[in-house]
């Protein structure tokens, strides 16, 4: 008899949701976390879209440790001195059933893991899984850990060990790991009083703001962000790993430069850095996803590169939670059927294909590369802000130029060919449309 029915590696959103789903189906579940508590290793600073939790934890928003409910979403395009801001506000997002939220992941992950414990899973912290155990036929049958006497056997292992998953690599599911597929997320958490944050961002109570930024990354392909917590703000950049390395720039310098931008400085002024952190992000979407199923093994969350970086949609936690939940359900069903082969566990990928998890990624498969392309990164911000600058500038007594003329001249000034503009527009329309 095995030590457990299902071992879940990593108590992040994917792991905890996998453990909840599996434990609720009556399985013996062990949830292993390398940190001293779930979320302790996390540096996340984004917006969580927890709608998928409706299925798993009804009325989750009554107990989840949320900082602010995001009621304003802004997309900002930065040139060297200018900024175009597209801002949408909906107070309805600040009421149940809510839309997105900011949260401290050490709190959120811990809360989610406690839901798994309440469902019957055993949570083992401060334990690092060092490898996969295999039976005589080469099927995964457990994990080894860094603890003495640390081997643990199970019918199914669900690897939710995050980006750069060692378990998925060890299982041979990541044949072509490529640094171009990853970005480095770097974040500063700045302490500001709640009153100041409310005033600067035009919100009240626990209303929050999400600002995504194109440009402002010192010439390194990527983007920036600002998120409001109750009495801190997260400001940071996401940088294409290969470009950051090639340009030999320091991420902390890039954040400092972003914070000095005339459009950003008034928002972050006076903020004291209380935390600095960095983390890899699997950003290439469908193109980098590994095979997610093997005999006795499932991969979920960031480990499976289930992160959507599609410009206006930047989501990861919801994909992690959904994939974890489906992995837990599929593993339980396979154990009930006494068949944990890859063929039996394929119900997991079927479920991903049927739902938003892979359908969104398929639909937007070309968008991550478009967003991180040199043209979108370096030429379009100057082009867009140049157009808007001239549209709103009043040069009396010179007559106002026509918009078409402005667009044509600014496009040429930015070095964008018409054919390139059309091609990118079509790619965007195909993805977003």
């Amino acid at each position, binding site marked *: 008899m095995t*030590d457990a029915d299902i071992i879940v590696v990593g108590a992040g959103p994917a792991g905890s949701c996998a453990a909840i789903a599996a434990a609720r189906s009556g399985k013996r579940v*062990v949830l292993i976390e390398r940190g001293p508590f779930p979320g302790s290793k996390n540096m996340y600073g984004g917006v969580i879209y927890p709608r998928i939790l409706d299925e798993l934890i009804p009325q989750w928003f009554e107990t989840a440790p949320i900082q602010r409910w995001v009621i304003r979403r802004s997309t900002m395009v930065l040139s060297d001195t200018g900024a175009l801001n597209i801002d949408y506000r909906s107070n309805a997002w600040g009421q149940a059933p809510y839309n997105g939220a900011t949260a401290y992941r*050490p709190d959120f992950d*811990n809360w989610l893991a406690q839901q798994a414990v309440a469902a019957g899973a*055993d949570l083992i912290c401060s*334990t690092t899984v060092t490898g996969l155990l295999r039976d005589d036929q080469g099927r995964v049958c457990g994990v080894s850990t860094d603890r*003495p*006497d640390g081997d643990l056997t199970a019918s199914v292992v669900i690897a939710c060990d995050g980006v750069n998953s060692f378990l998925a690599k060890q299982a041979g599911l990541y044949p072509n790991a490529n640094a171009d597929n990853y970005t480095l997320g770097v974040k500063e958490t700045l302490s500001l009083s709640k009153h100041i944050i409310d005033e600067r961002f035009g919100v009240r109570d626990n209303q929050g703001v999400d600002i995504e930024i194109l440009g402002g990354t010192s010439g390194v392909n990527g983007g920036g962000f600002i998120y409001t917590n109750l009495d801190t703000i997260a400001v940071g950049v996401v940088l294409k790993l290969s470009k950051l390395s090639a340009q030999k720039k320091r991420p902390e310098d890039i954040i400092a430069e972003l914070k000095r931008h005339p459009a950003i400085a008034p928002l972050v002024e006076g903020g004291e850095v209380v935390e600095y952190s960095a983390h890899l992000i699997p950003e290439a979407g469908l193109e980098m996803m590994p095979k997610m199923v093997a005999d006795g093994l499932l991969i979920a969350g960031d480990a499976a590169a289930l992160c959507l970086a599609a410009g206006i949609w930047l989501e990861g936690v919801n994909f992690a939670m959904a994939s974890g939940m489906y992995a837990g359900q599929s593993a339980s069903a396979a154990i009930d059927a006494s068949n944990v082969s890859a063929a039996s566990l394929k119900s997991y990928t079927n479920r991903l294909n049927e739902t938003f998890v892979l359908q969104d990624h398929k639909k937007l498969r070309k968008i991550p590369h478009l967003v991180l392309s040199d043209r979108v990164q370096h030429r379009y911000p100057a082009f867009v802000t140049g157009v808007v600058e001239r549209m709103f500038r009043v040069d009396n007594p010179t007559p106002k130029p026509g918009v078409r003329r402005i667009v044509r001249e600014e496009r040429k000034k930015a070095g964008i060919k018409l054919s390139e503009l059309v091609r990118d527009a079509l790619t965007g329309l195909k993805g977003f449309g």
Partner: protein
Amino acid sequence: MTIAVCIKWVNYSGPVESDTPDERFAGFSFADQAALEWALRIAEKSADEVLVLTAGPVGAEAVLRDALSRGAHRAVRIDIDLTSDSSVIARSLVGAMSQARMVWCGDYSNDRGSGSVPSFIAAELNIDQALGLVALELPENANASFTAVRRLDGGRREQLLISGPAVLSVEGSTIRLRRASLKNTMSASKQEIQVITATGDRVETPALRPYRPRPRVTLAPIGLTALERVKHITDTSSSKGHGETVHAEPSVAATLILESLRKWGYLP
């Protein structure tokens, strides 16, 4: 027999004080960890059971489960207000450690408390105490006496022979606590923890007063005016009337000195 280990659960939130301490950062000190390790090593050589105790709310059970996962046999939580007097906590701990032949404590806790609980435990049990140990040499035979080195003020050391029941407190540098096995970690999460509600009685200790020397009678200064009297007190060149040089045998001289001291009020 039982070897008791008292560990202090401290809800430590780091250098920044917080109004809402977070139990995720709670734990026990390296000194307490060393105490647990020494107890486990002695128990491995004997048939003793290791009983680990802590005082505090339900959240404190996390450190007990940690201790169980590392090899302790039994755990007791004293349900008591942690702001209670150290003597009250000590008496509560003693009440839960019947037949303990040895009590191990850390020399300090994570909140750097008074460090007085081990002494109160020793007083309550009426056994010896060896506190602030910086080195130990355990014998092959777990029941044999062993030597320990104790830190004294001024960098001095005291070597002690521990031969009977005693309360020992150790520094964290003496030994490193073992890592728990995976199986023990899993089973510890389900192991029963006994909960005892504290009695709240203080430990009675002998009444002690700080040392205070007897008052010395000082004669009033001589002089008709204030200036003269001040001069009498402060003028070192003038004679105060005290002091006399005598040439005599030592025994006679000693008698004269004692008589003078009595006369001047320095002796009764």
